[in-house]
């Protein structure tokens, strides 16, 4: 730094170290972290779970520090060291100087208060004595700033009457209420759909540029960083791996870990690649015709109130050729999960025809006994997908034992052969699920699904609860197994790039309908469907080719 720049940075974190004295000895959560944040800057802190990124954010907001047995280093805000302040002085800073936005927009808002009142409450806490009319005026102004259409009308809405994206906008408005100079946003868009995420990021960037706000953006998503951050801090296991300008980190990463993180981000290829010559399509393993499913109609509430049947699926048709992978992409509420659950027999369909392996499925009720085991599911959250009170071996042995009934006795060696294939060490067999990492759990789930020798695997967002680097491993494992064993799979995801990497054909769903359907090359390269294009455009350009 040249001697001429005398201005202190707005926020300076120097040698921050936070340690816990746990039962098993000392754990260092954050180690020697230093960075600065200037006015009107966006700093992205990126890392996988357990990297300590949220802890740093909380330390800046002043939520932690005291709870750590040992904390070293300084956090200077406008030249004033935070640790020298009393609790009262720190509390004054919160909201006025530093505000925060959290991931979960549902729990950040009081469900019993209108959004206008919640916002007004914050305003009057920061400017006591403002007249009501003035508070209302400012509230509506703030709602307008964060891009809520009809802010005056939305003033009296309750949080549940808003969509997730609108709720997160209200949370941002509340953070802005005290006109803070720094906002710490912890995964602000992770709970949102891709198209909404883009809008929220645009709003944040716009606020930074127009009112000179500084933003610390904590995220696991390279795409988010690429979209709006000026500087990036890459963290791993509580330490900074690399920090530099965003473009430098993205285009020219110095550290191996950053390179790995970047290469793990699935990329979307838009240029129609050399279309693999499609041989004549093999007989389909799965045909779905005009499948519909509605919720909420016909029950007692429907009889007493207005019958408000809501369609989760409307006349959806699709086919999966034997040995191929169909990707189903859609945002939340598009019905993609419902399709998967109907195919697996976990839910019933109202009307339509499902033919699996040449046999018509009875979709009028869930749990069609004749087809149990023929469709296996891999679920989103591996932490919930394994019985917490059974070891890995017990889980797999159960699967083998009960699927054996229909096929005659099975060799118990299959279990170890399968776990070897999944890249699971044999010592893990005696472990309980909570003793495994997320990636290991998901491997066990895949092993269980394969041991049942299904005709079709339905994978419902199998990677979205995992860290980026683990995601890539699981996707390539799935891809490899499917190719090796000639299995057919329906792969449900919200992420276009992952789907492109693994699927032969893609269906795009929106509001319970199949918007677009076709071979992967066609959907990503030539499809003219407006919604498909919008989904593709919502992705950060840097990861699109």
């Amino acid at each position, binding site marked *: 730094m040249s001697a001429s720049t005398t201005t202190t940075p707005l926020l300076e974190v120097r040698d921050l170290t936070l340690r816990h004295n746990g*039962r*098993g000895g000392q754990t260092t959560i954050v180690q020697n972290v230093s960075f600065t944040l200037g006015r009107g800057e966006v700093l992205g802190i990126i890392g996988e779970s357990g990297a300590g990124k949220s802890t740093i954010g909380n330390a800046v907001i002043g939520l932690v520090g005291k709870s750590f047995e040992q904390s070293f280093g300084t956090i200077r805000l406008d030249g004033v060291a935070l640790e020298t302040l009393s609790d009262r002085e720190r509390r004054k800073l919160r909201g006025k100087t530093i505000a925060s936005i959290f991931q979960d927009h549902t729990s950040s808002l009081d469900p019993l208060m209108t959004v206008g009142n919640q916002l007004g409450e914050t305003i009057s806490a920061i400017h006591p004595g403002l007249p009501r009319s003035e508070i209302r005026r400012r509230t509506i102004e703030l709602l307008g700033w964060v891009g809520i259409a009809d802010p005056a009308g939305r003033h009296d809405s309750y949080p549940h009457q808003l969509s997730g994206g609108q709720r997160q906008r209200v949370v941002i408005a509340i953070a802005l209420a005290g006109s803070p100079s720094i906002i710490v946003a912890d995964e602000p868009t992770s709970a949102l759909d891709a198209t909404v995420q883009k809008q929220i990021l645009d709003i944040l960037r716009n606020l930074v540029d127009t009112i000179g706000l500084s933003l610390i953006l904590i995220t696991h998503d390279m795409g988010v960083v690429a979209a709006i951050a000026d500087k990036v801090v890459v963290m791993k296991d509580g330490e900074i791996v690399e920090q530099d300008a965003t473009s430098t980190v993205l285009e020219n990463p110095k550290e191996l870990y950053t390179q790995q993180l970047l290469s793990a981000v699935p990329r979307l290829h838009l240029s129609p690649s050399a279309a693999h010559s499609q041989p004549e399509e093999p007989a389909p393993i799965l045909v779905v015709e005009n499948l519909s499913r509605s919720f909420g109609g016909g029950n007692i509430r429907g009889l007493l109130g207005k019958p408000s049947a809501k369609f989760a699926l409307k006349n959806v048709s699709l086919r999966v050729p034997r040995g191929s992978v169909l990707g189903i992409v859609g945002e939340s509420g598009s019905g993609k999960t419902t399709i998967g*659950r109907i195919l*697996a*027999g*976990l839910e019933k369909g109202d009307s339509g025809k499902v033919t699996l392996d040449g046999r018509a499925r009875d979709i009028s009720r869930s*749990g069609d*006994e004749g087809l*149990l*085991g023929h*469709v*296996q*599911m891999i*679920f*989103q*959250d591996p932490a*919930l*997908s*394994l*019985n*917490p*009170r*059974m070891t890995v071996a017990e889980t797999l042995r*159960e*699967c083998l034992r*009960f*699927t054996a*009934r*229909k096929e005659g006795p099975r060799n118990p060696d299959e279990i170890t052969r399968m776990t070897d294939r999944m890249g699971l060490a044999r010592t893990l067999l005696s*472990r*309980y699920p*909570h*003793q495994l*990492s997320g990636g*290991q759990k998901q491997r066990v*789930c895949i092993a*269980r699904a394969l041991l*049942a020798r299904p005709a079709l695997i339905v994978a419902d967002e199998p990677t979205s609860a995992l860290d980026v680097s683990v995601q890539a491993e699981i996707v390539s494992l799935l891809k490899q197994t499917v190719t090796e064993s000639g299995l057919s799979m329906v792969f449900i995801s919200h992420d276009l790039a992952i789907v492109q990497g693994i699927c032969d054909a893609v269906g795009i769903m929106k509001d319970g309908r199949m918007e677009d359907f076709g071979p992967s090359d066609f959907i990503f390269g030539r499809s003219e469907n407006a919604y498909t294009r919008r989904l593709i455009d919502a992705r950060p350009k840097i990861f699109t080719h």
Partner: protein
Amino acid sequence: MKISTFKPTGFKMPDRASYRQFLTMPNIVLACYVAVALAAPLIAHQNPYDPLQVYGWEASLPPGTEGSGGFNYLLGTDGLGRDIASSIMYGLRISLLVSIVSALAAAVIGLTAGVSAAYFGRWVDALIMRVVDLQLSLPTMLVALIAIVTLGPGIDRIILALIIVQWATYARVARSVALSEAGKSYIDAVRTMPLPRIRIIFRHLLPNSIAPAMTLLPIEIGHAVALEATLSFLGLGVPLDQPSLGSTVANGFQYLMTGQYWISLFPGFALFGLIATINFVGEDMRRIWDPRSRSI
């Protein structure tokens, strides 16, 4: 990768270092109660219900009188010459037996019913839960009285009556826990496999729904002790030749007016101490086992 050393979630056993937390006053007192009940035939001066060991002419003696059997009636004797201290020890056996057996049986039945209701849903759920509602809407005492009157006297009947009274509470708790467990994908995963339903319920759903019922158990045992004592006091409880603490209290009730307080009072104290101790133990166990209350 960091591997934690905890046992499976749900029913968490405390680790070795925290076994010391079991050395609390209520636990020690309860252990003494149980020890006395178990050892009653060895340490009591007489078996008050064996006519050969009771000296009928030494009736209604005040506490501290020297008896002709070569021992001191520390707590006095009742109207039939039975040693009150020995009666308390023997009564404790029956009280504890009845309450523990009934609470455990009610837990097993209630858990199974609640978990089945949650798993099957629809009419099974409606049927079981309406019976539970009906049961819980009637006063406990009334249900117990009706059960006793219909079933007749006897220890086994009392246990049955107490099971009828208690199972519904477990069923309701178990159902709500099982409902949230059934929504997790490990249940979905086994539902897509050709597993017998009974296995899904007993191997997957039930073990993961047990923990909250465990916190209910000690408190329900306390209830059972009190309820059994009340029934026995009313003369509807255990038969006369197998008296519990409640019937021992009832024995001396008529003598209270004539100043022979000890016949009712000391068994009453013992009963009070037992129920209070069980409730304290239950509170401790709830704190240890219920993760939600622990984190606060």
